[in-house]
């Protein structure tokens, strides 16, 4: 029995086109009796299809509670005037809307129902805009990160006593400003990254008894006082001397600690005051730590990020001893080799996600991965994996290394982009029946390995970038039943026609390719009469580089002539020896 089938069909029919909207829009001025979840579903669909315009907002005045317009540059005074009439608006997201300035905020002054306001990255908002926000007295969550508000404006925020969450990232918050915010005793979430606070300012954090989430990345703070309620702490890119040194009977039971890129004067001393029994997430990436013995005591770690750190095979033993509960381990861009995998194997029974991208492992590590029974996601991109090892003493006898991954029953996501695998070594991948996501990117893969992927029944996402895949190979491919996304970017032999016939035959599969983005751009320009113009910068080909197939420039006879001509470095000296086709190259129209 299809739940809500008719409701869904009605919403679809109402948002089908601008004409359908016109037909029902005039029936009544406002929809008081529409239940909120229906209004929300209809509004989102209209927004997604770019059918919204300011006067249409009037209809939703009494039935919408949440409006999300982030990234829409067309939101201006007219839109805000209608939004100001919303009676029950609880959450308004205008992040990144370039049209929002101080005067536009006047429309929402005094809105009693508004509890959540996000105007981050609206660069025209200054201290004058804060005056309007101050009248919204019930505000509980406010995000003004990366606007042009200064310390003076932030001091004025102390009148919003109901604030629970305050995001002041990227603003020049001084210690004095934090001092005046001490009346916000309900504050649970405070984001001060990139601000001007110092150690004196950090002492003031003790005035917030409920503070659970604190972000002081990119500041000058070295020492953090004891904050008993803290659960999440981000001190990335700071130079840390001590955390939670100070008076107080209760040590905070910190659950997440992010110190990406931080430098430590003395790691053991810095962590000595930390109550690490509950620490479950630890991010040490890009940090300059050379001794990881402090990890030994951390028994509850679930996520550990050591990417781009100084981790090597000799330093990994402490990780192995704490890794019983570990679920996510990131060792990318480190100097670890197979020896580390040997040390970790058997000690990580709960490990689900392992990232070894850009590390120095090779095919011999794969057999140790089979001793990690719960692995679901493996990232082996940009490593030296070839898919085969050689028997001892006999350099010609290849032993395929990828079949051992069959032993991992829960393996779902495998990333082999940028490795040295070839068609023959990828053939055994057809045996990994549980695979859902597979990412491949290599200049040397061809139709053969593409067709091996048909035998993976559960595959949802297949990335096959940069390969030598022909149109014939694509059209004769029988995709697995559940395939949803096919990423073929960088397959330079595929033409627009080949891709569109594949898309026509299998409309449920989303194909990504440079020529496909051009197709979507054409279609969206045809529908361009809608009021909310799509942000065209998002339609540029990903990766930013255009590629042209040089062969199109020449006719068949010219190409045959070119194959028999001497190489160009010989001809460099004497232009008269160039084949006729190359001499004319500048006159050709661009492909």
């Amino acid at each position, binding site marked *: 029995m299809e739940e809500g*089938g*008719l*409701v869904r*069909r*009605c919403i679809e029919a109402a948002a089908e086109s601008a004409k359908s*909207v016109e037909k029902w829009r005039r029936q009544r001025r406002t*929809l008081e009796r529409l239940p909120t979840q*229906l209004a929300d579903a*209809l509004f989102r669909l209209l927004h997604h299809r770019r059918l919204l315009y300011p006067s249409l907002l009037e209809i939703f005045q009494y039935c919408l509670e949440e409006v999300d317009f982030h990234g829409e540059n067309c939101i201006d005074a007219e839109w805000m005037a209608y939004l100001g009439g919303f009676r029950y608006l609880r959450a308004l997201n205008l992040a990144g809307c370039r049209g929002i300035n101080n005067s536009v905020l006047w429309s929402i002054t005094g809105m009693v129902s508004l509890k959540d306001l996000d105007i981050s990255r609206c660069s025209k908002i200054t201290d004058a805009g804060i005056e309007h926000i101050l009248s919204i007295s019930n505000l509980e969550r406010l995000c003004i990160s990366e606007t042009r508000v200064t310390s003076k404006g932030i001091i004025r925020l102390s009148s919003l006593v109901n604030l629970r969450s305050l995001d002041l990232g990227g603003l020049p918050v001084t210690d004095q400003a934090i001092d005046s915010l001490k009346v916000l005793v309900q504050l649970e979430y405070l984001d001060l990254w990139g601000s001007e606070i110092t150690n004196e300012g950090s002492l003031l954090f003790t005035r917030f008894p409920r503070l659970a989430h604190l972000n002081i990345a990119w500041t000058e703070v070295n020492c953090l006082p004891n904050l008993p309620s803290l659960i999440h702490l981000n001190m990335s890119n700071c130079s840390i001397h001590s955390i939670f040194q100070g008076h107080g009977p209760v040590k905070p039971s910190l659950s997440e600690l992010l110190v990406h890129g931080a430098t430590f004067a003395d790691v053991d001393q810095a962590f000595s005051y930390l109550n690490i029994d509950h620490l479950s997430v630890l991010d040490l990436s890009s940090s300059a730590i050379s001794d990881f013995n402090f990890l030994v005591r951390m028994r509850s770690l679930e996520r550990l990020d050591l990417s781009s750190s100084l981790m090597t095979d000799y330093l990994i033993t402490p990780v192995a001893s704490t890794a019983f509960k570990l679920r996510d381990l990131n060792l990318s861009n480190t100097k670890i080799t197979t020896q580390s995998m040997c040390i970790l194997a058997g000690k990580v029974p709960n490990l689900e996600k392992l990232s070894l991208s850009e590390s120095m492992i090779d095919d011999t590590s794969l057999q140790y991965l089979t001793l990690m029974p719960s692995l679901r996601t493996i990232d082996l991109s940009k490593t030296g994996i070839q898919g085969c090892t050689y028997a001892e003493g006999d350099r010609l006898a290849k032993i395929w290394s990828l079949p051992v991954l069959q032993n991992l029953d829960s393996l779902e996501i495998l990333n082999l982009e940028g490795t040295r695998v070839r068609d023959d070594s990828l053939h055994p991948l057809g045996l990994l029946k549980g695979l859902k996501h597979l990412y491949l990117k290599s200049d040397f893969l061809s139709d053969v390995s593409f067709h091996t992927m048909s035998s993976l029944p559960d595959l949802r996402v297949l990335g096959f970038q940069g390969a030598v895949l022909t149109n014939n190979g694509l059209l004769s491919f029988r995709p697995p039943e559940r395939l949803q996304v096919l990423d073929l970017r960088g397959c330079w032999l595929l033409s627009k026609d080949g891709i569109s016939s594949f898309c026509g035959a299998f409309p449920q599969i989303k194909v990504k390719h440079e020529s496909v983005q051009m197709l979507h751009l054409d279609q969206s320009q045809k529908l361009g009469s809608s009021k909310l113009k799509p942000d065209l910068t998002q339609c540029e080909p990903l990766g930013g580089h255009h590629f042209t197939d040089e062969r199109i420039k020449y006719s068949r006879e010219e190409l045959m002539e070119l194959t028999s001509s001497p190489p160009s470095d010989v001809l460099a000296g004497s232009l008269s020896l160039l084949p006729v086709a190359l001499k004319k190259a500048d006159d050709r129209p661009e492909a």
Partner: protein
Amino acid sequence: MEEDTVKLISAEGFEFVIDKKAAMVSQTIRNMFTSPGNFSETRLGEVTFPEISTPILEKICQYFYWHLQFARCAIPCILSPICQRLRPQTFMFICIYSSRENLCLSFYFRKESEFHIEPEITLELMMAANYLHT
């Protein structure tokens, strides 16, 4: 066959007599008739909807029958590969099949034919459908 029908009454007092099976597409109506207790709806076999107008209720009854035809029947699914190769316009074909002792004549629309909803009634129909849990 009279016991297998229910009567739906609109705001203006129009009475729609439809199969019980069709009415059960709506979760609300199904709950009304299957819940224990001696409700007047169950006894008399009729439900009044003082907030749903006549054209909307008519459309809803059409939806019930449409839903019965296409959302559950297995035979159109078997025939749909054949349907997809034929002309794209909506058509009706008659399929005769025998099931045990009966010889049944059934009408099937092509699987692609959607339930068309006029834009003017979408809002009211949406609210009524939400109330009826269909």
